[in-house]
């Protein structure tokens, strides 16, 4: 789906990203792990075409024609086709004066669909993110953060993308809500065979849901491994330190066995 | 120390460039206004010089025309003024034949003394009123202060001036009504202007203080045991000063421009009065100089404000033009 080779991004005199390599297959989830300042945002911006490549190339098979396209330094491109985005702060991502239903339908801005088709898609998107239809007429300030983020997710889904890029979508949420929405996100991926590029600093999420982990530090790629390999045998010391830290914070605990079925929060929380 | 010196020099350099541009633009525009104003310039000059004793003879008019190059094209007339100006020759008043500079200096000193006194009186009063009203927002004293400021803003300064004269001069005979000789002559006009300053600054300062009081870090400071008075004087006030300085600069510029009305009412020979008289008598060199002085003082005050702000706010702006 998406392959990045030796990507380098410069800004004035500094090299923001150096020699980034990864490959994301269809239906896979790749977690980009890094602390602030590691270059995560720069990487996303360069995928979007907002920051010019200094070296390297981006290959993707996301177009409708199924052909592999290549972007190289010097080329201008306005983002990857067939890719939706979900960002960190749902309050900032949603127009506070726009009703939820309209906000979600905005995801269809480029498609030409009949009204009834739009409504059908709207309803199915809402179902997938587990929001009740009553919320269509509400406005974002009336929603909880978790609901607002589900709205953003629905908006990303409605255009039937091949890939979704997430930029720390769970960081602003409560621990419990994080887990719920993470489950929803994962189920959607499995149901539609979507590819995910998921930026986060939370190793707990990565271990639970990622197929691959790309570790960034100060603009350099520390390692890119499959999840099990990373947690079993991290290829970098920094990675091992991160795993230790996550353990201390309790993010990597696993139940020996769950005593009960995990109760779901009511739909739309 | 050298770091702040560098920063200040950079501010000054930036300002210098814009100052020159402003001065040039203002002077040219004013010249254009004069140039296109109706009436024969030569006659007007002759009239002003020889004091309206009937019509000016054509020979004298021709002489004047030649002296001032009044039949030359627009731009060379402008340069005719600009050239000597840049060398320090500000010209002579058409009316009194005195050097513009000589006329200007005592007047500007008058205005300065009036302006600074008014500013100080006004600011002190505004500070007291704003602090009291912020002490307990919504209380009686708060509402009184706000009402006072609103009423004051609605009061025309000439009306207030006249009232003060009526009360303190005519009736009580405590203070002189006009003239500029001594300190007591300063009191009434400074109070009139000062009240104008108070009304504009009280509301502003009050809202700046309220905003500063709502800053998030104050609670943590309280929890550390910092007393309320220390919080006010060292933290809240400092925060409120930052926007306040800008607004005080605005008022100071206005004051310097020569609170015309007040000066006329109290018969003081300040810049404002000078402005009025020079425009009325078409005293072109004086007008040009005064206009330029206005522009210059605005830029100067803005620069001072910027320097003070730079000193007050430790988070420096990233772009300072040439700064790397």
């Amino acid at each position, binding site marked *: 789906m998406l392959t990045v080779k030796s990507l380098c991004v410069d800004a004035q005199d500094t090299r923001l990203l150096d020699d980034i390599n990864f490959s994301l297959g*269809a239906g896979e989830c790749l977690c980009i792990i890094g*602390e602030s300042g590691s270059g995560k945002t720069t990487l996303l911006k360069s995928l979007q075409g907002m920051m010019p490549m200094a070296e390297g190339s981006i290959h993707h098979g996301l177009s409708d024609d199924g052909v592999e396209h290549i972007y190289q330094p010097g080329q201008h491109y306005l983002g990857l086709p067939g890719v939706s985005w979900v960002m960190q702060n749902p309050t900032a991502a949603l127009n506070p004066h726009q009703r939820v239903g309209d906000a979600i339908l905005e995801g269809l801005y480029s498609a030409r669909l009949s009204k009834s088709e739009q409504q059908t898609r709207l309803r199915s998107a809402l179902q997938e993110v587990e929001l009740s239809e009553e919320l269509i007429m509400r406005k974002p300030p009336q929603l909880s953060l978790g609901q607002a983020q589900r709205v953003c997710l629905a908006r990303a889904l409605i255009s039937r993308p091949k890939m979704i890029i997430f930029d720390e979508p769970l960081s602003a949420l409560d*621990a419990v809500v994080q887990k719920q929405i993470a489950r929803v996100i994962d189920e959607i991926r499995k149901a539609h065979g979507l590819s995910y590029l998921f930026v986060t600093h939370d190793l707990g999420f990565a*271990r639970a*849901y990622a197929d691959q982990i790309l570790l960034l530090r100060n603009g350099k790629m520390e390692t890119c491994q499959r999840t099990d390999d990373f947690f079993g045998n991290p290829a970098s010391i920094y990675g091992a330190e991160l795993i230790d830290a996550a353990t201390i914070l309790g993010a990597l605990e696993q139940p020996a066995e769950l005593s009960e079925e995990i109760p779901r929060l009511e739909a739309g929380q | 120390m050298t770091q702040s010196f560098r920063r200040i020099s950079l501010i000054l350099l930036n300002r210098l460039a814009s100052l020159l541009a402003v001065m040039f633009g203002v002077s040219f525009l004013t010249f254009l206004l004069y140039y296109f104003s109706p009436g024969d310039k030569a006659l007007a000059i002759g009239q002003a010089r020889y004091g309206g004793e009937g019509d000016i003879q054509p020979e004298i008019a021709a002489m004047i025309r030649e002296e001032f190059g009044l039949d030359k094209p627009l731009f060379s007339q402008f340069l005719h003024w600009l050239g000597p100006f840049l060398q320090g020759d500000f010209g002579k008043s058409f009316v009194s034949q005195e050097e513009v500079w000589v006329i200007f200096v005592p007047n500007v000193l008058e205005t300065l003394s009036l302006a600074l006194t008014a500013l100080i009186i006004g600011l002190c009063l505004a500070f007291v009123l704003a602090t009291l009203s912020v002490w307990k927002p919504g209380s009686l004293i708060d509402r009184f202060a706000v009402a006072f400021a609103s009423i004051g803003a609605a009061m025309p300064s000439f009306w207030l001036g006249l009232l003060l004269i009526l009360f303190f001069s005519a009736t009580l005979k405590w203070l002189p009504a006009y003239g500029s000789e001594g300190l007591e002559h300063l009191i009434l006009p400074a109070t009139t202007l000062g009240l104008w300053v108070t009304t504009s600054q009280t509301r502003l300062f009050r809202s700046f203080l309220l905003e500063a009081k709502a800053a998030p*870090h104050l609670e*943590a400071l*309280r929890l*550390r045991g910092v007393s309320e008075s220390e919080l006010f004087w060292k933290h809240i006030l400092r925060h409120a000063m930052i926007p306040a300085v800008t607004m005080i600069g605005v008022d100071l510029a206005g004051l310097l421009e020569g609170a015309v009305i007040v000066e006329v009412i109290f018969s003081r020979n300040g810049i404002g009065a000078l402005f009025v008289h020079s425009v009325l008598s078409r005293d072109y060199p004086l007008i040009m100089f005064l206009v330029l002085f206005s522009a210059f003082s605005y830029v100067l005050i803005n620069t001072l404000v910027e320097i003070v702000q730079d000193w007050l706010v430790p988070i420096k702006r990233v772009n300072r033009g040439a700064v790397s």
Partner: protein
Amino acid sequence: MSKTNSSLLSVRDLSANIGRQIVLSDISLDAQHGECVAIVGGSGAGKSCLLRCIMGLYRPAKPTSGQMIFADQMIELVKDRSVRSADLGFAFVPQNPQAGLDPLKRLAVQWKQAVRCANRGEMSKEEQSELLGSLGLPDFGSCYPHEWSQGMQQRLLIAFALLARPKLLILDEPTSALDPLIAAQTITRVMAHAKEHDIATLIVTHDLALAARFANRLAILSAGKIEEFGSTAKLMEAPGSDYGKLLVSNRYWAHQSQSPERV
């Protein structure tokens, strides 16, 4: 009080309103000397209101009933509007540095002010360096807050809290503003320091996993009520309330299945 109370902090029947809306009802909890107690709850549960009532910050939530006993001193929560400050033995670490440092004043000046106001006399240079060093912080120099990174500022807030030699250290969402590496380092150091100096800690967080790692006892707060309060081990094993069960079973990320389905 004739009976010696071994609890350092004891809150009884605290209720609070914002305007007419009830935000806290009948909160009772306690903390022993040197113990770590965590208050866990989702956003909107009332955690910050609870903290503020304990600390005497009565805006916007005002207590309508309740008492508090701290270090054998009774405090009537409704009547006593004074801030429970450092010289009483409280220390508070806010969630982010904007809420703790004055951006206009140099760090060294703020530090001196804190030392002075904590009523603890002078602090020697060595003591200062030791405390700062234990949190991985350099000397202030003539720095302003914005010249340090967010992480450093946050750790400095902890230093500010600790310099007062408090009996009770209150941490508001201690890890949310920090990157995981620094967060882990910081919280371990803080808890070590607390243990060493017998300082009780009250941690407010939405992350049950974090609370479970460090707290001796947990209070689960939901919609202004304490659903459960008890030892961590017991609560984790067998939560009594529905909300407790919800929290406990949701504290793990779901276990990844062996072979993810591909469409």
